[in-house]
C-alpha cells in the first residue's frame, strides 16, 4: 500500500479519488495508464475524438451515446478525475469501503448505476424518457432491420407498460420499477483488474 500511494503522487487528485470513489490504488493507477493511452496528444485531457478511436466502439449501437455520457453538455474535455468518477458507477456495489466524506449515495450503488443508465436514455435531461427518446434508442439498437411502424409499436407498448402516472413518459422511478427483477448490481458491474 505504501509504494502504491507514492506512485499516485503524479496522478492528479489521486488521494481525493481514492476517497471519493471505491477504487483501490492499484485500480486507479491502471485507469490512469489507460487514460494516458487514450490521450494521444498528451494534453492531460480527453476529447470526444480520443474516445472515438477506441476499437469496437463504433460498432456499438449506442457508442455515440456512451461517449456523450462522458462529456456532459458544455464540456468539451474530460480530465482524469471525471473519467474515474464516471467509471466508478460500474464498480460492484459491495466494494464500498466506509469512507469518511461520503455524504451522498455512492456512485456504484444500484440507484447510482440506474441513474447513470437513465441519463443515457434521457438526453435532454428533463428527468423523463419521452417517447421520442425511447424511439431513438430503439432505432439505434435495431437499426435498419425493422420498419418504423414496428418501432412505434414497441415504443408505445413499452411506455404503456411502464408508465404509472400516465404522463406518456418514463420517469426514473418507473424505470427503476421496470427493472426490479433484474439484478442490476450483477448486470452493471465490471470487474476492474487490480
Amino acid at each position, binding site marked *: 500500500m505504501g509504494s502504491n500511494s507514492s506512485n499516485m503522487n503524479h496522478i492528479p487528485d489521486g488521494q481525493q479519488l481514492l476517497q471519493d470513489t471505491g477504487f483501490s490504488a492499484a485500480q486507479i493507477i491502471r*485507469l490512469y495508464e*489507460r487514460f494516458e493511452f487514450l490521450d494521444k496528444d498528451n494534453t492531460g485531457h480527453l476529447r470526444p475524438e480520443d*474516445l472515438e478511436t*477506441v*476499437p*469496437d*466502439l463504433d*460498432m*456499438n*449501437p*449506442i*457508442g455515440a451515446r*456512451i461517449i456523450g455520457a462522458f462529456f456532459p453538455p458544455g464540456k468539451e474535455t474530460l480530465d482524469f478525475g471525471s473519467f474515474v468518477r464516471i*467509471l466508478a458507477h*460500474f464498480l*460492484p456495489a*459491495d466494494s464500498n469501503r466506509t469512507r469518511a466524506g461520503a455524504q451522498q449515495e455512492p456512485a456504484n450503488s444500484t440507484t447510482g448505476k440506474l441513474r447513470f*443508465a437513465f441519463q*443515457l*436514455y434521457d438526453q435532454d435531461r428533463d428527468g423523463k424518457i419521452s417517447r421520442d427518446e*425511447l424511439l431513438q*434508442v*430503439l432505432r439505434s*439498437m*435495431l437499426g*435498419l*432491420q*425493422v*420498419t418504423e*411502424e*414496428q418501432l*412505434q*409499436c*414497441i415504443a*408505445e*407498448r*413499452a411506455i*404503456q*407498460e*411502464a*408508465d*404509472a402516472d*400516465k404522463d406518456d413518459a418514463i420517469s426514473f422511478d*418507473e*424505470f427503476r*420499477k*421496470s*427493472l426490479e*427483477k*433484474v*439484478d442490476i*448490481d*450483477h*448486470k*452493471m*458491474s*465490471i*470487474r*476492474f*483488474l487490480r
Partner: protein
Amino acid sequence: MTSRRGSHSPAGFGKSLPERGLLLLVLLVLLEGSVLPLGAAGSPDTSHHTKAGNSAGNGTGNVTHKKAFPVLSLDYHHIQTPFEISLWVLLASLMKLGFHLIPRLSGIVPESCLLIVVGLMVGGLIKLAGEEVPPVLDSQFFFLCLLPPIILDAGYFLPIRPFMENLGTILIFAVIGTLWNAFFIGGLLYAVCQIQPANPSNLHQLELLPCLLFGSIVSAVDPVAVLAVFEEIHINELLHILVFGESLLNDAVTVVLYHLFEEFSEVGTVTVLDCVLGIISFLVVACGGVLVGAIYGILAAFTSRFTSHTRVIEPLFVFVYSYMAYLSAEMFHLSGIMALIACGAVMRPYVEANISHKSHTTIKYFLKMWSSVSETLIFIFLGVATVDGKHDWNWTFVTVTVILCLVARVIGVVGLTYMINKFRIVKLTTKDQFIIAYGGLRGAIAFSLGFLLKKELFPLREMFLTAIITVIFFTVFVQGMTIKPLVELLAVKKKQEAKRSINEEIHTQFLDHLLTGIEDICGHYGHHHWKDKLNRFNKKYVKKCLIAGERSKEPQLIAFYHKLEMKQAIELVESGGGVKMPSAMPSTVSMQNIQPKKPPLAKPVERALPQLPKGREEEIRKILRSNLQRTRQRLRSYNRHTLVADPYEDGLGDLLIKKQKMIELEKKIKDMNNYLTVPAAPPDSPTMCRARLASDPQAYHTKSVSDSVPAIQVDLASPQSPDSVNMMDEFRRAGQQQQQQEDQGLTMRPPSRPGEAGGARDPQKLTRCLSDPGPSADEEEDEPFLP
C-alpha cells in the same frame, strides 16, 4: 382436469375423491405386482402343458394325433420381455399419477422418496411371491436407456445465460469439489478401516485403491436426484444452476477417476506418471465429450435447415442425433453426459428457428415425457434393487461413509466458496453455501457404477453396494425431505415466476451494449466483450449457415415483441370478445380473479366484456369476411417460397386477423373503456404463430393447431407491411380518443391460471412433475446464442 375439479369442489368431497383414487391405484399396483411374478411363473406352466399334451399325444402312437384346433391359448413366453417392460412403465406412470392426486403427501415428501418406497414394496412383493427379482438396475440398461432422456431433457432446456455466467464457479465445484470429496472420503475410510485392533474384520483387507475408488463413486453429486428434488423447491436460479451444473459437469471427473482407480486396482500401485496421465485423460474426456456433442449438435442444426418439406420427422432428428452423440462419446470412454448437454445446448437455438411449431411442441413434450418416466423408473428400480441385492451390512463402514460424505461436502463447499468469492461479482452468501452443500444428493449413477464393479477384483463389492445404497437413501430421504422446510426457514430467495416485460427486454439489451462499450473504453476484455464478439460471429456466419430462410435476420427484440403482442391478442380474444367459445367462460372467470401485478391503473378497468347480440355479431362477421378477402390476397404477395402449402395456414393467419379486427370493431361500436394497442406486426411471422399456439391451443376450435411454418418469408421492410398496418391503424385511430386505458390485456394476463395442472397455460414452463414451473424458462431462450 381432475385437479381443477378437485380444487373447485367443496373440501369434503374433494378429499374423498383423491383418496378413493389412491385406493384404486394401490389395488392396481398390487395387482400388477402380482402379475409380474405370476407371469414369470406362468410361462413354464404353459410350456409344460404343451409338452405334456405332446407327450400324451405321442404316447398313443407314432402318428401325431390331430388335436383340436386351439381356439384360445395362452403363450406368455412369446411376449414376456416387452410385456414386463410395459408393465414397469405403466406402474411408474400410475404411481406418478397417484402422487399428484394427493397434494398433501407430495407437499411433504418429495416424489423421489415415494417412488423408492414403491420400489421397495414391489420388490418385496416379488420376493414374497417367491420369484426372482429381475435385474432391473442392470448397468447397461441404466446407462444406455434410462439416463440419456433425463440428461437430454436437462441439456436441451438448460438456461444458457446463467450457466455461462457462472461457468467458472460451476467448474470449480464440479472438478475440484469432486476430487476433494473422492480423496477425502477414500483416504479417511482407508484410515478408519485400518484402525480395528480388537476384532480383525474383513475391513482390513481393504486396500487404499479400492477405497479411493469407492470414494470416487460415492462422491459425485447426482443430476437425477438433484433435478428431482430441486424441481419441487423452486429455489432461485443461481443456486439451482450452481448445484445442477455441478452435478452435470462432475460426470467427467467421475468417469476419469473411476477408470483410473479401476485400472490401477488390478496393478496395485500408482505412479506419478499415472497421475499426470490421469489429468490429461480428464481434459481429454471433458473436452472430447463437449466436442463430440457440439459436432452432433451442429449436424442436427444443419439437418433441420432442410426439413421444411418433411415436418413430421423433425423431432426425430433432434432425438437421434443427441442419442448418437451420447453413444459416440461412450464409445470412446468420453463423458457421455457432457456430450449430451453440449449437443442439446448447441443445437437448440438453430433448430428452434427452423422447425415448425408442432415439432417444437412435440420435442418438448416427448423429452419431458421420457425423462419423467425414466426418472420414475430409476427410483422405483432403486427400491427394487435394494430388496433384491445381496447385502453385507457393516456398521462401521456404512456409518463412517455417511458421515464422511456429509463432512466432506460441507468442508469442500465452504473452502471452495471462500476461494471463489474472491473472483465473483455477486458473492455467495452463507445461506447459499448451506443450500449448495445440502443439495449435494447422491443417486442412481453411484449405484450403477458400484454395480459395475467386478466381484473378482473387489471382494467387498457387496459391502460397497450396501454403503452406496445407504448413502443414497440418506441423502434422498433425509436431505430431500428436509430441504424444503429449510429453504422456507432460511428464507432463501425463491424463483421469480413472472414473465419478462418488453421494458425489461429493451433495457437489458441496452445495458448489454452499455457495458460492452464501457469495457472497450477501459480496455478491459471482460465477460461482455467476448459475449458481444461471439454474438456478432454467430449472427454473421453461423446463423446464415444453420438457419433456413429469412428467419436468420430477425432481431431478437422484434421476435420477443411479436410474441408478447400475439399472446395478448389471443388472451383478449379468449376472454370472450364477442366470439362464442366454450373456453371463454372459464377464461373470464379466471380473469376476474386475477390481481394485477402491474402498477395499479388510475381508472378501474372494466373486465367483463358484454356479449354482442347475435344480429350484431353477424353484421360484424359479414364486414370482416369481406375485408378478409383482401387480406388473404395481401398475404399471398409475401415471399413464401419456403412455405409449405398447408391448407390450414391461411385459415390460421386469417383467423387471427379476423379476431383482432372483430375486437377493434366491437370496441369502436360499443364505446368501451378498455383497449389494446393493435400490434402492427405482420401477422404471419413465425414467432407470432408460435406464441399464439403457445398459449392455449384448445381455445381454437377451428381447424385446430396447424403446422405453422417458421420459414415464412417475412420481408420485414417490404412495401406490403404498411398496408396491413394501415388497415388496423384505421381502427386504432378510431378508438384513439378512448385509449387512456392501456393494456387491459396486461391485467388480464394471468400470472398463473388457477386450477390448471402445472402450467398447461404456459407449456413452456411444463415440467415433468406437472407441478410448478421448472428451472428453464423456455421463453428466455429465444435469444442470441450467448445472450
